[in-house]
């Protein structure tokens, strides 16, 4: 067990135009941990994720992965290093089949391009995400849930060491969410470190070891799920002051 965190986010600030979307956020993600990143809309979660994968530039602060500063790396270098991410709005390659989409991930990740290894990685990713039956169809021919799974399969085929998931549960129903939860657990079991941005609470509480909460670009909590969710600040952030006050009053009333 390495003591060095896999992902180290230090004092990260991201601005666009006049808006400061992320303000001095710091936290670590340890080897093999699953960390959830939550917060109300506009809190800066996706922006932070974009900053990590260098789709946004940092105004200040630093981001390191496995000890290397990745803040100004080109996306393809990050991919080769072992960082994969999914996108909130899935964008598979429209003119390639499911299998071919996954293949792109396998071919270009981590310097691998031997024929056999690629094929094996592709099949493994497809099997893990349950896309076997639809592997030869084009993305527009499969359901949204399948496309989300394709997004995951592509990321998996890259054999990442760190996986960034951006609202991968959005738009899925009850059963589908359950399947994705199981999938994420399986991925972690393979040794991958995962950072999950999510709105679906049930999923977050089910899979995360730790939860980081953002509000208005700032970190307001960073702890185990049970502690974070009963934290007054977090409740207030999500449900507003009146709800928090009512809850507090209720609690006081019970105590009496």
């Amino acid at each position: 067990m390495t003591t060095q965190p896999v992902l180290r986010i230090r004092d990260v600030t991201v601005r666009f135009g006049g808006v400061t979307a992320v303000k001095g956020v710091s936290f670590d993600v340890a080897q093999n941990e699953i960390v959830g990143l939550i917060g109300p809309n506009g809190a800066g979660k996706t922006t932070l994720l974009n900053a990590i994968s260098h789709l946004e530039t940092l105004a200040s602060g630093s981001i390191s992965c496995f000890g290397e500063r990745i803040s100004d790396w080109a996306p393809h270098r990050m991919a080769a290093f072992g960082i994969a991410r999914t996108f909130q709005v899935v964008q598979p390659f429209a003119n390639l089949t499911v299998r071919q989409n996954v293949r792109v991930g396998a071919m270009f990740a981590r310097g691998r391009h031997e024929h056999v290894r690629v094929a094996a990685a592709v099949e493994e990713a497809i099997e893990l995400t349950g896309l076997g039956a639809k592997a030869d169809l084009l993305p527009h021919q499969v359901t949204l849930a399948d496309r989300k799974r394709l997004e995951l399969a592509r990321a998996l085929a890259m054999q990442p060491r760190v996986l960034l998931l951006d609202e991968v549960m959005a738009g899925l129903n009850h059963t589908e969410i359950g399947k994705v939860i199981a999938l994420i657990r399986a991925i972690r079991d393979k040794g991958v470190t995962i950072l999950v941005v999510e709105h679906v609470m049930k999923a977050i509480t089910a899979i995360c070891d730790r939860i980081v909460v953002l509000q208005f670009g700032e970190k307001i909590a960073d702890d185990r799920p049970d502690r974070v969710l009963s934290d007054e600040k977090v409740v207030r952030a999500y449900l507003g002051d009146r709800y928090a006050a009512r809850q507090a009053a209720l609690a006081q009333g019970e105590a009496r």
Partner: protein
Amino acid sequence: MTPISPRGLLLALAGALCLAALAAVPWLAGNYWMRILTSILMYCVVAQGLNVIVGFAGYHAFGNAAFFGIGAYALGVSEVLGLGFLASIPVAAAVSALVAALVGWPLLRLRGHYFAIATVALTMAVGELVTNIGGVTGGAQGLALPLDTSQSPEQVYRQIYFLMFGLAVLSTLAVWHLSNSRLGYALRALKDSERGAMAMGVDTRRAKVAAWAISAALTGAAGAIWAHWMTFIEVGSAFDITLSVKGYIMMLIGGMGTIFGPLLGAAFFELFSTLIWSRFTEVHNLVLGILVCVVVLALPFGIWQPLRRLWHGRQGSRA
């Protein structure tokens, strides 16, 4: 590996027959047809060159004719300086590829329309440059290539025919190999989503530049052989934007991004063009224009896909 179906076997046989027929042309058909076919094969190469950068990478190099001219002049200068014809062809291809790599590095950062126009500007600029440099390039007077006196004209034309034929086969093989190779996947991915490709580890800049270099090498080689064929070249015809446009339309008619589409398109277009020229010299451009309009409006995706669907008898497109 998928087993070879009887249909597949039939197609392969047809293909082999075609190749054999083409190889026998100089003895079967007359000089007139050999010349027409040389032209068709040349356009096959140009169309395949375009196929690599446009069909696969999705970058509309409308001015790819620049490399045709560069190849032509590179060969011309090379021959004038003493290097033989056959040795000059790879030189011409290499020079074209080099220019593409150098110019492509900044230009391929441009998207869509901008890149298309930049390539047109490139064609015109290089043409002007060649004219103004003068000296060994012959400048505005054009360049006369040393005549091959060791062979009879017949033999020379035959040699040129076979070289074009070989180049056409080579370019098709290149495209075939590309479609399954790592570079091919990189290009197809970045064509659909450049950002997505980058996120998955594709070095898109290198892939695009490589594609353009390959495209340029093929186009340049075609230009080189053409230069030797013409024995006299000048900027106006070597750097003719019409070449790019015709190549585009052939690729369009045939179906871009496919392996054989450009060949079909080149054959169809050039045959049609030649037949009309000989009958209706006056209205040549008019009919050409009408043909282009009809094709674009009626068959925006080329004839290869519908043909293929007919042949395979099933719905849905294969990637």
